[in-house]
C-alpha cells in the first residue's frame, strides 16, 4: 500500500495536533505557548535512557526550532534531564553525518559516495562473504555426528538498542535469513 513521505509526516503532526488541542483557553495566557505559537508540534519519546519521557518537538518550515518536555506525559509530566533537554541539538547539529562516506582499503581518507553505489556494494560484500563462509553442515566435536546448521560464520551484525522496535524486528529477521549466528548488541554489555 505504500505511504509517501508527505503522508508520513502528516500522520505525526495530526496525532500531535489532537494532543495539544486540549486547552485553548489556557494557551493564550501561557508564555511557552506564545513562544511556540504557529509552530507545528509533534510528540516523541526521548532517545537517551530508558525512562521513556515524552517530548514535544516544535518545527517550522521543516526545521526543529524548539524541543521541550511533554506536560501531558504521565511519566515526566513535562520535566527533562540535561540529556533530554539537549534533544534539540541532535536535530540541529553541524557534526551530524549528512552524506554516505566510503573509505577504500589502505586509504587515509573518506570519500563521498551515492546511496545507490554504497548499498549495491554492501549487498555485494554481504553476499560474497555469505557464499564463502556459509556452513550447510558441521560435524559436532563431541558426538562426531554431522548436523545441518545453515549458518554464515564470516560476518557479524551488531546493534542496536537505539533502533525502533520495528527496525529491530526487521534487523532480526534479515540477520537470521542471512544465516547470521553472530547477532549481538548492547544488551550483552
Amino acid at each position: 500500500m505504500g505511504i509517501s513521505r508527505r503522508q508520513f509526516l502528516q500522520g505525526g503532526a495530526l496525532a500531535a495536533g489532537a494532543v495539544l488541542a486540549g486547552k485553548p483557553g489556557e494557551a493564550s495566557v501561557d508564555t511557552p505557548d506564545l513562544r511556540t505559537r504557529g509552530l507545528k508540534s509533534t510528540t516523541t519519546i526521548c532517545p537517551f535512557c530508558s525512562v521513556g519521557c515524552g517530548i514535544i518537538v516544535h518545527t517550522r518550515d521543516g526545521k526543529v526550532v524548539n524541543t521541550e518536555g511533554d506536560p501531558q506525559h504521565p511519566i515526566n509530566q513535562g520535566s527533562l534531564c540535561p540529556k533530554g533537554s539537549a534533544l534539540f541539538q541532535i536535530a540541529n547539529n553541524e557534526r551530524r553525518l549528512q552524506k554516505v562516506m566510503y573509505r577504500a582499503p589502505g586509504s587515509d581518507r573518506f570519500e563521498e559516495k551515492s546511496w545507490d553505489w554504497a548499498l549495491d556494494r554492501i549487498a555485494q560484500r554481504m553476499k560474497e562473504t555469505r557464499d564463502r563462509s556459509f556452513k550447510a553442515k558441521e560435524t559436532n566435536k563431541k558426538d562426531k555426528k554431522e548436523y545441518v546448521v545453515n549458518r554464515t560464520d564470516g560476518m557479524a551484525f551488531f546493534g542496536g538498542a537505539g533502533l525502533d522496535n520495528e527496525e529491530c524486528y526487521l534487523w532480526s529477521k534479515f540477520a537470521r535469513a542471512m544465516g547470521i549466528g553472530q547477532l549481538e548488541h548492547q544488551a550483552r554489555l
Partner: protein
Amino acid sequence: MTNHWIDLKNSDAILAIGCNPAENHPISFKWIEQALDNGGKLIAVDPRFTRTASKADIYAQIRPGTDIAFLGGMINYALQNRLIHEEYVREYTNASFIVNEQYDFEDGMFCSFDDQEKTYDLKSWAYANGPGDQPRRDPSMKDPRSVFQLLKKHFSRYDVDTVCAITGTRKEDYLAVAKAFCATGRPDKAGTILYAMGITQSTHGTQNVRAVALLQMLLGNIGIAGGGVNALRGESNVQGSSDYGLLFHLLPGYLKSPEFDNVDLKGYNEKWTPKTRDPKSANWWGNTPKYITSMLKAWYGDHATKENDFCYSYLPKRSGNYSYSKIIERMGKGELEGLVCMGMNPAVGGPDSLKAREALGKLQWLVTVDLWETETSIFWKRPGVNAREIQTEVFMLPAASSVEKEGSISNSGRWTQWRYAAIHPVGDARSDLHIIDEFCKRVKALYAKDGGAFPEPITRLSWNYGDGHEPDVNLVAREINGYFTKEMTITDKDKVLEFKKGDQVPMFKYLQDDGSTAGGCWIYCGSYTNDGNQMARRDASDPTGLGLFPKWSWCWPVNRRIIYNRASVNPAGEPFNPKRPVIAWDGLEKKWKGDVPDGPWPPMNDAKEGKYPFIMLPEGHGRLYALDMKDGPFPEHYEPVESPTRNLLSRTQNNPVVKLPANVSSDLAKYPCIGTTYRVTEHWQAGAMTRSLPWLVELVPDMFVEISETLARQKGIANGDQVKVSTERGSIQAKALVTSRLKPFNVGGKMIEQVGMPWHFGYAGLATGDSGNVLTPTVGCANTSIPEFKAFLCSIDKGGKRA
C-alpha cells in the same frame, strides 16, 4: 522491570543497589521522591557516595563485586529474624519443594563439577520426584531436603560480621539497611529493588540478579504495587532490542535461537517447550510451538507449510557461544570478513578496547550506520596507527535521528510508545528501517539473479513493506502483532470468535501452531489490533490511582503493567495489601478487577481452574532454588576475577564456571587500587550521542578519573592534575577529580583505594578523551557473558600527557 517507573511512588522502601537513578535515570527520581514524600525510605548501596546516595535515608558503602555477600546477608537476616512473608513463600515459591539426594554444597562448590570442562552437571540439582512424576513437596517446609531448609543452611554462613568483612561495609550501616528493607516482608508493606550494571556487569552477574529476586520472593515483594525486581535499563530501546532477539541465543519474543541438534521443528519444540503434569501450573512456555510457528509464518509466508516444517530449516543453528566478546575474539584472529554496526560503537563500548580496535583492522569490510562519526567508523585513522596499513573497507552511512522517523520504542517498564517524524532526515540521512529494507531487497535481488549458497532463506523471505521510498512502518508493526492467514472460528469459553483472513490477532492466546496465524513477536501481540495502533494511545486516565495508566501507550505482555500480579493476592484472590490492590477477584462477577491479571483463571484456590502465579515456570512457583543456572542453584559469593583479597567465605576464589583470560592480574604490588566504571547525567554510553552536542560538552567537557582525598594526598595529586591509570590491558590519561564521594574500602583491615571513571569518552566527536574501557577485562558472567566492567585492579600515577 517487573513493575514500571511511576509505580516507584507506591514503595515503602526503595533499595538502589548497583544503580544510580538520580544520575542515570534522572526523571525516575520524580517518583522516588514521591515515595519519600509518602513516608517511604530510600536506601543506596554503592561503592561511591552517588547522587542517589546523597538523597538516601541510608547509605551503605560496598566494595565492587561483593553484591552476593551483601544481599546474601540480607537473606540470612530476613530468615533469622522471621521477617519473611511466610504465606507467600510457602504458596508461591519453590520453598516447599524437595531436592534430590545428590545435591550438595561444600566450600564454595556445588556438587558434580567437571574440572576439565569447568561445568556443572545441572541434572544433579533436580527436584526429587514423587508420585505421578511430580516434584515432592513438604508444605511445612521442615524437611531437611526442602528448598527452604537448604536455603537457610546455605545463607546461614552469611552472618553480618562475615558479610561486612567481605563487603567493607560499616556494620551499623549494614544493619540499618537490613532492618529498613526487610521490614517490607509484612503483607501490607512494599519494597522494591532497583539495579543496573553494578549488578549485571560481573562474573557472577546473573546470580547477583538472582540474589535480588530471592530476597524479593522471601519478602513477598514480587507482583505487588511498589515492589518488584526492577532493572533500570540503559538505552531508550534496549528493552525492545532485547524483546526482538538481537542476541545470539534468542529469536524475537525470547524464543531460543535453534541449537545444532534441534534438527527439525519437532526437535526444536521438544527441546524448548517445558512440560508439566501439574494441572494447576499454567506453564505458559508450553505455548512455544504456537509462537515459533507464527513467527516462521510471518517470515516465510505461503512458503511456510506444515509439510516443509514451516521453513524451520532456513534458520541458522548455533553451536556454541557467539556472545559479543567471543565475536571480537574471533575477529581479532581474522576469522570474520565483515561486520555491520547499527548504532553500536565497539571501539569504545566493549571491554579491552585496544584489542577491539585492533580486531576491526582484521575485517575485510565494515559498515557503520550512525548519526555521527564514531570511534568505530574512524578506527583506521585513530591516534597512533598508520591508515595505509589498514586494509578494511569502511562504509559510513548517515542515519536519521529519532525525530526524523516514525516507530515505537519500549521503556524499562515495558511501555511501548509511538514516536512520530517531526522533520525529514537531515541531509542524505535515512532511517535505519529504510537502510535495513535496502540491504535486504538488494541482497534478495542478487540471490534471485545469481544464485549462491543456499539462497532460499533469502529469496523466499516474506518482505513486503510498501512501495514508498520509506518502508511503511505500520505494515511492519502489524506483522509483528500478527494476523490470521485464513478464516478462523475460535471458541474461547462461552464466546465464539470469528476472524477473517488478514484480521489482526487481538492477543497472543489466539496464536496457533498450525500456520493459521502469522506473528513476528508473540509478546507484542495486541500492540496493533483491528482497533488500531495501541502503542500510540495517549489517554492519561488512571482509574486505580496506582499510576498504571492502562490507556497510555501499550505494554507487553497484554498491556499488563505489573507482571506476576497473581502473587499480589492470597490464594483466595484477596489482595495481600488492601490499601494498594493491583488485582482482586470479584467472586460475584467471577472476574478480576484492576490491572490485567497474569492469566484469566480464577484464584489459585479454585479447585478446578485455579493456577499458580509464576506462570512462566513449569512448576508455577518462583525459584528460590534454580534449576538452570550454570553456576549453581543458589547464589554464592565469589571474588571478582581481579580482586585485592582472598575469598573469606570459601576456598573457591572465583566463579568456578568462568574461564579466566591471560591478561588479568591480581598482583597488588603492580595494581593496588580497585577500578570501576560509571556514567554521568550529561553523557550517554559510548558518547556519540552526547559528545557532539555543545550544551552537554560544555557541562562535562573532559574525561576524568575520580579519586578520594586520601589517595590524592598519598600520590600528591591535586584536582585537575593529569594522571595515568593502568591495568594489565592498557593505560589511559585523564584529569583527576578529587572528591569526598570516594572513600577507600576496608579489606581485611587494610584500606584499599578506589578509582572511578566514566566510560563515555573516545577519539571521535567534539569532546574527546581516553576510553575507560581500555582498562577493563574481557571476562564475563557465567550465564550471560556480560563483562566484568565494574571491578578490576589498576594503578594510578600523577603525570603523563594525553595521547
